[in-house]
């Protein structure tokens, strides 16, 4: 079996020294799409933020392609090939769509390469091409989410982490976004996504982890989790 692209071993993480994640261990294989699901406040975002380097773990080890990244800062993890699309989109509101995308490729210096990636993003999300000159704040919530994802892809990451991308979107739009994420994953980008929409996330992911109060309580292939009585009761209201 191949080595995992990302592995977390007994990670404790939190804010200002107060842990909200207690000993999370998980693995993501190259090319895989993995979902971390759970209720609001379960520690899903905190886990991703720890991987991105926004808040380093208080304890435990995070490895990316075999390398210990537990103590790296975000610009360093990005340089290694990790891109984190944060919760709440966090687009640069006063900048245009194109400027936002260009910032996503900040570490790339070749203008030709940046253009190539811009074209690629506008093919993936045609609406961004139509609105290239508009400021990000004039976009709808769904369009802003597309911009955030496209911006995250502009650095050509090997691992894309998506944090609550369905938040505040209409159900039809959520479905479309999920389809796009599948397409991104099929193009060769490993995806780790965090979702409150448990069913939708598990339907597209290969495997899943269920996080509850900062601990992983269940994990396995998505199919199994979707069939699990407990999960159906706790998260899908069935």
């Amino acid at each position: 079996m191949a080595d995992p692209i990302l592995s977390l071993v007994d990670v404790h993480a939190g804010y200002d020294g107060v842990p909200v994640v207690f000993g999370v261990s998980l693995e993501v294989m190259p090319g895989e799409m993995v979902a971390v699901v759970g209720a609001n406040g379960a520690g899903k975002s905190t886990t991703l933020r720890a991987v991105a380097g926004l808040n380093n773990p208080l304890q435990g080890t995070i490895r990316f392609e075999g390398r210990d990244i537990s103590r790296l800062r975000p610009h360093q993890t990005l340089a290694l090939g990790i891109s984190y699309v944060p919760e709440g989109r966090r687009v640069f509101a006063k900048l245009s769509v194109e400027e936002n995308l260009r910032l996503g490729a900040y570490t790339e210096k070749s203008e030709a390469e940046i253009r190539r990636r811009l074209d690629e993003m506008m093919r993936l999300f045609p609406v961004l091409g139509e609105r290239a000159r508009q400021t990000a704040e004039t976009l709808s919530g769904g369009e802003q989410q597309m911009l955030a994802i496209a911006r995250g892809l502009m650095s050509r990451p090997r691992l894309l982490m998506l944090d609550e991308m369905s938040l505040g979107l209409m159900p039809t739009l959520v479905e479309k976004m999920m389809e796009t994420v599948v397409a991104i994953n099929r193009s060769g980008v490993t995806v780790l996504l965090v979702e409150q929409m448990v069913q939708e996330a598990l339907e597209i992911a290969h495997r899943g982890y269920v996080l509850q109060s900062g601990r992983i309580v269940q994990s396995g292939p998505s199919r199994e989790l979707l069939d699990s009585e407990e999960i159906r009761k706790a998260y899908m209201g069935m």
Partner: protein
Amino acid sequence: MDTLLQVLLDGMLNGMLYALVAVGLCLIWGVMDVINFAHGEYVMISMYITYWLGFLAHVDPLVSMFAGGLFIFILAALTYRLIIKYTIGKPPLSALLATFGLAMLLKNLCLNRFTPNYRILSDTWLGDRTFQLGAIIVPVPQLVTALLALAVIGLVFFMIRSTRFGWAVQATAMDKEAAELMGINTERIYLLIFGIGGATVGIAGGVMPTYLAVHPEVGTMFGLIAFICVAMGGFGSIPGALVAALLVGFVEALAGYYIAPVFKYVAVFGLYLTLVLLRPRGIFGW
């Protein structure tokens, strides 16, 4: 009429100097949301550098201002690295109080080393050269300072607006975390912005001893005026600080001449109070 023009010219030249001092403070506030209370003391230190280089080694202020700029760049970068860094993300008051302490330290260090005496540098190239423009007398040192201020402010503005570094600075100012996720080393941006903010004021302090006496208290007033320029212009707006600084220069000169010299700061701070009461976000604030 000629008198009025003369007064306005003096006001404008002084205003440009204030603008040069203010732009560094403005830059630091705009990007980092930090008010550096030691900003005026940077002016003072830089003036001493020019003074001592001129007095001991006969280096002209036009040369030593670069030394001042470089030295204050380093001093400011150290201020960030050793003090400000630990106040980021803490209540805004902590950076303010820490830099206030630094200001006290620098001022008293100079008081202790250099005595409170006023020192004037003589025999500089620009000296007290003037030229006649119609009926107006133009003082050359102040004119050179004003042109220098314009050049430095223009350079800073260009750097922020049109370079890759400036892009990173703007992104950091808008959303620090999101900027980090773009691969921007915001720690380095902060360090450089603090350094550059210091360097601009170092250059300002570097030319000033040509026509202003150096003493340990000289920076305090400049720091205060820079602060009100930044506040009036709209925190973080460089054009705003420039306009506000010119306004301060004009009001100061007009009140000083037509009312009484001792009254000039009353007018300046009166203007400040009125403006922030009417428009709390400043001239160019949003």
